[in-house]
């Protein structure tokens, strides 16, 4: 609301419009279905049970490349009950207009990342299930599922976090003008895609992200963070 008031006071020309950001989660080009088995590049047969992450630092990119920051930290959860296609993940009032892109982070801004979660409110409290109690900050991105090992199901998880691994996305194009995000007065929708198969794109030091190897099964820190981070940097795109 404060943002909107600022626009009205300063702008005068642009009318407020509602911006919706929607996300579709896919495996490659196929809509993700939780519980359904997939193959990754290492040849593991896997299925997913949970995808959960913080979205923050959302900003629209204006014609001159400057940012229009939009307030708020959101905790998003996808599981078998939520669906995965065209899910609204962010809503805000913005000045109507055409924007050159969107920027956002998956994670928590550093300024919020090291407080005591037991003293925070939703979505930063302990009921978020995104807390590392030994306090390097919050889990930014969580994916959990199962893979087949010797015919038996075994769980795997990736809990990515810590300040250096906040994922920052810049889905904007000021130079070539190929991205035109139109937000008319009647409201606009920005559609994002997350290709979850990208998580398995590559492992450490040229090896594959192979769930049959112990170091890729319960990833809550350590060197595999770097591989997962790089893989995820290419996982979001504009539709």
């Amino acid at each position, binding site marked *: 609301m404060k943002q909107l008031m600022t626009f009205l006071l300063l702008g005068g020309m642009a009318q407020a419009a509602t911006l919706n950001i929607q996300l579709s989660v896919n495996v490659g080009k196929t809509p993700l279905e939780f519980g359904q088995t997939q193959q990754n590049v290492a040849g593991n047969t896997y299925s997913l049970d949970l995808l959960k992450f913080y979205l923050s630092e959302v900003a629209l990119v204006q014609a001159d490349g400057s940012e229009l920051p939009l307030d708020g930290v959101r905790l998003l959860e996808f599981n078998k009950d939520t669906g995965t296609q065209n899910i609204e993940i962010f809503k805000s009032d913005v000045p109507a207009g055409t924007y050159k892109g969107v920027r956002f982070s998956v994670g928590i801004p550093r300024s919020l990342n090291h407080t*005591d*979660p*037991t*003293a925070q409110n939703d979505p930063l*409290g*302990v*009921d*978020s*299930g995104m*807390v590392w*109690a*030994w*306090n*390097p900050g919050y889990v930014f991105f969580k994916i959990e599922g199962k893979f087949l090992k010797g015919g038996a199901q075994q769980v795997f*998880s990736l809990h990515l976090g810590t300040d*250096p691994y906040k994922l920052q996305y810049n889905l904007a194009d000021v130079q070539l003008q190929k991205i035109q995000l139109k937000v008319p007065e009647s409201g606009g929708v920005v559609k994002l895609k997350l290709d979850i198969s990208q998580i398995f794109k590559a492992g450490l030091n040229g090896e594959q992200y192979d769930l049959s190897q112990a170091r890729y099964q*319960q990833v*809550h*820190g350590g060197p595999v963070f770097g591989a997962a981070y790089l893989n995820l940097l290419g996982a979001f795109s504009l539709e």
Partner: protein
Amino acid sequence: MNRIVPLVLLGVVCLSAAPALLPQIPTTNPQTPEKIALGKKLFYDPILSQNGTVSCASCHNPDHAFADNQPISPGVEGRKGARNAPTLTNVAFRKSFFFEGGAKSLELQAMGPLTEHNEMASDVAETVKKLKASAQYVALFKAAFQDEPSMQHVVEAIASFERTLVGFDSPYDRFQRGDLTALSESQQRGMELFFDKADCFHCHSGGNFTDELPHNTALSFFDEDQGLFRLTSRDEDIGKFKTPTLRNIALTAPYMHDGSMATLRETVQHYNDGGESNLNADPLMRPLGLTDQEIDDVVAFLESLTDETFVKNPAFREKP
């Protein structure tokens, strides 16, 4: 008056041995009998673990001063992490938690073992759902918080119970209060060594025998557990672990962050030797020159820190 009430609820029998000590009670989570009762029930209830097999008390056993007698306690499905379960003796007085000291409240600390994959592996939403399905728990949460079960209230209640685990009545405390028969001659010699030649007191300082700071005690040249480094990513922090309390230490073998030393004597001998070669070793780590008799005396002094009233306190037990 506000200060007196929490002290009473802590069950502090006597703070005179440690007048500078004050319990750390967040203003957002004052002690109440209802919270303590709920926290105690939760502490002993495996309902909080993923598969209903592990409770807080599985690794924090009252018979061992709320520590364990294993190097690494098994979690759900027998999985093992990397660290030795610490005692909860006088945990109310601690300002930070875990061997890095990264958690600044007991409430936040409780989230660690609850959700850690190798310990209780609890899923927050699932656990809250289980508690809400229990009429008994719904009533207890309502009495304690005037609210329905949530993970926030789970950790607040457990922390409230843990803050009652207070004991200052060991032979050492009684000696400090003037009972000169409380310590044997060997223990008295050990006490002198502790505060002088053996130099233990630099890190094991204050009424709870901890400076609450991380140190590298030259335990090994290489350790997969990098200690404080995992919080700071600074090379000089590799192998630093927070000083543990020594209260009830005779009951909490094995020792060190990884439980790698079986006895107190072995541990004191490690310090007497000056530790292993290690670039990050604390400057205080050097050969101490203690004789065998002096090592025995230091061990005897450490044994005088056992508080039998703490260990036998029925209020701490699941079934008093």
